[in-house]
């Protein structure tokens, strides 16, 4: 079933994220994908996440598709201008990719090539507009296409941001620009997510809540300091700190969060960040 059909069917949708290798050894990517086959509805492959140069999202997604998974291509505006982005959207389509997650992208200095020239010719909103324009048979310059693509377009939102209003304003713009589903940044505060959804549900686009499995208290503290819009409450950090088996406790916290938030939205988006092997167990434990 395609992601579009899964969301349309009204079932609780599960997506998971995989990071491609730095290099061309795709064994790990494929074995992680194998673990997810039949357990999730779609798999995202990140696009140079945290501005770290890796194998591309599109190539990785083609490999996943060959293995029978439903891929979501992530596309950021950091490294490509409007010419390259439009071209890659067309390339994605001829390679059988429908699902595109349109993102702005992290800034280059956060990654491993801080000397690189940042692009940001388009942003998440205008990338969505570009995809829509291609669907209508024209590029951003108004030139006619021979054969037009058809996408299922996604976008991201940060429900834990303080204040939340700028995020909601941008989310609404993304819907207007063409976003058909949302995968959120990770959130560890169900009450906050509930408040966010009270507003976000008005935009009538399915929301998959972002889930990160915590590995340690230090990881949580690092995210609180460095990752935009992510806040792990102090009580959760203490809980992890006291636990003997941190991985087990991390899964337990995640299952609790999923159970508290699953009635508020249309699905979850799991960002395992190294714990891909634990995802099937996590899905079982959450009873999904």
């Amino acid at each position, binding site marked *: 079933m395609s992601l579009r059909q899964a969301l349309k069917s009204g079932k609780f949708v599960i997506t998971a994220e995989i990071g491609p290798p730095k290099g061309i050894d795709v064994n790990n990517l494929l074995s992680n994908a194998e673990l997810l086959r039949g357990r999730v509805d779609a798999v995202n492959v990140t696009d140079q996440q945290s501005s770290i140069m890796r194998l591309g999202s599109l190539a990785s997604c083609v490999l996943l598709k060959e293995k029978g998974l439903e891929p979501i291509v992530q596309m950021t505006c950091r490294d490509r201008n409007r010419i390259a982005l439009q071209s890659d959207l067309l390339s994605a389509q001829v390679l059988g990719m429908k699902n595109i997650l349109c993102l702005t992208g992290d800034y280059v200095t956060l990654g491993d090539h801080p000397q690189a020239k940042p692009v940001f010719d388009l942003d998440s909103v205008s990338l969505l507009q570009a995809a829509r324009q291609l669907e209508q048979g024209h590029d951003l310059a108004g030139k006619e296409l021979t054969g037009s693509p058809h996408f299922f377009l996604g976008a991201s939102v940060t429900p834990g941001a303080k204040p939340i209003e*700028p995020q909601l304003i941008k989310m609404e713009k993304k819907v207007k620009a063409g976003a058909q589903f949302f995968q959120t940044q990770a959130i560890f505060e169900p009450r906050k997510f509930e408040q966010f959804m009270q507003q976000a549900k008005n935009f009538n686009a399915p929301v998959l809540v972002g889930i990160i499995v915590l590995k340690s208290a230090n990881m949580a503290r690092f995210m609180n300091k460095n990752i935009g819009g992510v806040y792990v409450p102090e009580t959760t950090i203490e809980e992890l700190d006291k636990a003997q088996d941190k991985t087990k406790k991390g899964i337990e916290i995640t299952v609790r969060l999923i159970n508290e938030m699953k009635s508020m939205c249309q699905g979850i988006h799991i960002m395992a960040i190294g714990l891909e092997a634990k995802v099937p167990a996590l899905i079982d434990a959450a009873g999904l």
Partner: protein
Amino acid sequence: MIISELKPWSEILSYLKDEGKIFLVGCKGCAETCHTGGEAEVLEMKRRLEQEGKIITGFSIIDLLCDKALARMRLTPHQIEVKAADSMLIMSCGIGVQAVSALINKVTHPACNTINLGGVQGEWRGDERCQQCGDCVLDLTGGICPLSVCPKGLLNGPCGGSKNGRCEVEPEVRECGWHLIYERLKKLGRLDKMKAIPPLKDYSKMQPPKQLRNTTLWSLER
């Protein structure tokens, strides 16, 4: 010296569509030299806007609008006129617009586009920076330049890297530019500006125009 040119008349009028009372600000620095914000141009703007049925509550032409201390001093005697206006139309480069926006809690509109002179900046005394993009968007952003305050130069609001009002790039020294814009627009009661999706930016206007390269000014600057 910063080169500016007046925006198309239709664009200026579109900014003032829902506003009847306007206060005009000109600049006797670069804008006077460019014939975009000197006394003659401010008076001409006043005449044309009055023809359009607008009420000009007052005007002030400041020696160097980028000098905020001076701008504050010169605008103080006009307090009542500024207060009576729905908005302010600023006839200067992008720095002048941002300087007035920083000083006065009132909607500002840029009357000019600031043209790229190839990296040369003019007189300035404060935090405000103008990228000389040739297609000023300050009307949409509460008089804070998104190309200058956001490292990514985003035009549609904050990215996911905004944290507690700080920017992901250098959180210790940088505020999130879109957080500043949001706060300013909220204070002005104009969040509708942030909700609008602006047209795609024309980055070709960021190159110094051909006709400028032929001037003595360009040769001198080099």
